[in-house]
């Protein structure tokens, strides 16, 4: 993988009104950046901006490396199987996909266990794992995860946390979440509050930070 760095400098974001102003974040390969904030604080908007889906009102976002964005809601097609959904977004053959799912860090997600199951018959955890695998097949250097643990049971959460740990060794991860257990695995946590992003000092828990 390429050297993955993210440099966000004085970025302001607007969505109908100004959401964030003068956000500055630097992330290197191996960083797991946690974005903490209440609903509507701009976490998802910031991830969208990093992915390039949303334009910034001002400031610059420089990326070195390819991004993969796992959104809060999935883009899966319900009536198709996991394999069909994966094949939609990648030029890889079925055999190559199986190989990726079983022989790389993606094996942690255990997608191969339900590869022929239709999405409409999957649990929330399965869908989330499949959504992450779908993005990861394109070999991103920077992974953006929006609420990756929302509404998941403990085994599914553990699988995804293990995967994030594994991925952080080779890339950069941005996570927007409310989940305290996930922030334990972050190298830096930014608190998004009152339109600004501030680095959370060590020793302060996310719950305390949110007040």
């Amino acid at each position, binding site marked *: 993988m390429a050297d993955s760095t993210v440099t966000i400098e004085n970025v302001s974001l607007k969505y109908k009104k100004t959401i964030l102003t003068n956000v500055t974040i630097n992330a290197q390969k191996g960083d797991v950046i946690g974005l903490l904030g209440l609903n509507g604080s701009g976490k998802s908007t910031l991830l969208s901006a990093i992915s*390039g889906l949303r334009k910034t009102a001002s400031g610059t976002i420089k990326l070195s490396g390819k991004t993969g964005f796992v959104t809060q809601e999935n883009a899966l097609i319900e009536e198709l199987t996991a394999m*069909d959904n994966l*094949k939609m977004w990648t030029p890889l053959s079925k055999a190559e996909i199986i190989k990726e799912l079983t022989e790389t860090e993606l094996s942690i997600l255990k997608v191969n266990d339900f590869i022929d199951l239709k999405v409409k018959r999957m649990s929330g955890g399965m869908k989330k794992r499949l959504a992450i695998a779908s993005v990861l097949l394109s070999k991103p250097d920077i992974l953006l995860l929006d609420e990756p643990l929302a509404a998941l049971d403990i085994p599914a959460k553990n699988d995804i946390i293990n995967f994030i740990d594994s991925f952080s060794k080779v890339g950069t991860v941005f996570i927007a979440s409310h989940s305290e257990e996930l922030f334990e695995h972050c190298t830096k946590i930014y608190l998004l509050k009152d339109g600004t992003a501030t680095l959370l000092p060590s020793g302060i828990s996310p719950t305390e930070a949110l007040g």
Partner: protein
Amino acid sequence: MIKAYCKRVLLFLPYVVCYFLALGIAMLALVMYASEFLYENSTESIVSVACYVPDDESYGSLGIGLVKNLDSVKHTIDIDLVGSEQKVISKVENGDAIAGIIVPDGFIETMGTPDARQVTVLYRDADTFEEHVVNDLLYAMSDLLGTTQASILTAREYAEQSGLSSSEAYDIGYDIQSTSLHYVMNRKNLFHKVDVDDLVAKYAVRERLTASYTLYILLMSVFVISFFFRGNNDIFRARARLAGIRTWKIFLLEAGCAAVMIYFVYLLLFICLCFIFETMNALSLITVIPAVLIIALLGTSLCYLVKSPTTVSYITFGAGTSLMYLAGGLIPLDFMPHFFSLAAIYNPFYYLNQFFMRSMFL
């Protein structure tokens, strides 16, 4: 992605087909019932025509008698032979007859001479279904009487020609006229000129309703297919953009899939209808393709604009049904007030409907 969409089409088709085959059967039953109801033998004549034939015109009376017994006439037109021209006028005036036919004195004697007298046909303010029937009667009668010479006047015009005060003679709607008469005159040139209205008159109610209901089913298919679209979902579009796939490509792919599904519905309906109608035109399997593409593109655009399948269904049912109704697609314009016939020419669905009728049965 194309392969995945092909697979989706195959998975979606059974739902679409089952839904619309059921709807199609229900609508066909309605068409059959409606046409049977209109034309069954026991049904009383639905159009009354007052007819005056002078006493000395025995040949004319014989002609009228023959016309009355024609299959195409006897179940649809009640020819009421009256004793005087004034009674014809009176019946038209009072609405007891939709039209009046006055055979003049000396009609037979002068036939074929420069002084040939003309049959006069009076119309009440109707240029709808009844008029088609009356007009057919006129042709049948003209043939039997050995002439196509007939003067076609509104009751008001006849009153004026006769020196009567139109206000005292008639209280008949004034707004008939040019549209109606132009139409009638076009009908006189039927063998040279065919226009949309002639086709409406030419085809039986059953074929007309079947064609328009088929179109209606295809329009409504957008509502079921709306669940198929994913390109109207922001998350899906974002995912596609990150994968380097532009939205317009997804739009075209989904519109193409919608067209395939709509066409498949038509194909199945066509096959089913072939067992019922001998007049089905196999060429329509090709000629409807542009219409199917238009429906698919409009449907896909609607689904992309509105996004929510529930709202799409509201719009499809609400706007689609209303426009089809106003275009005479659900109930023939002939059975509706005159205003609907005038309004229909501004309705694009009217032309789509005509297109389907021509395509399926011509």
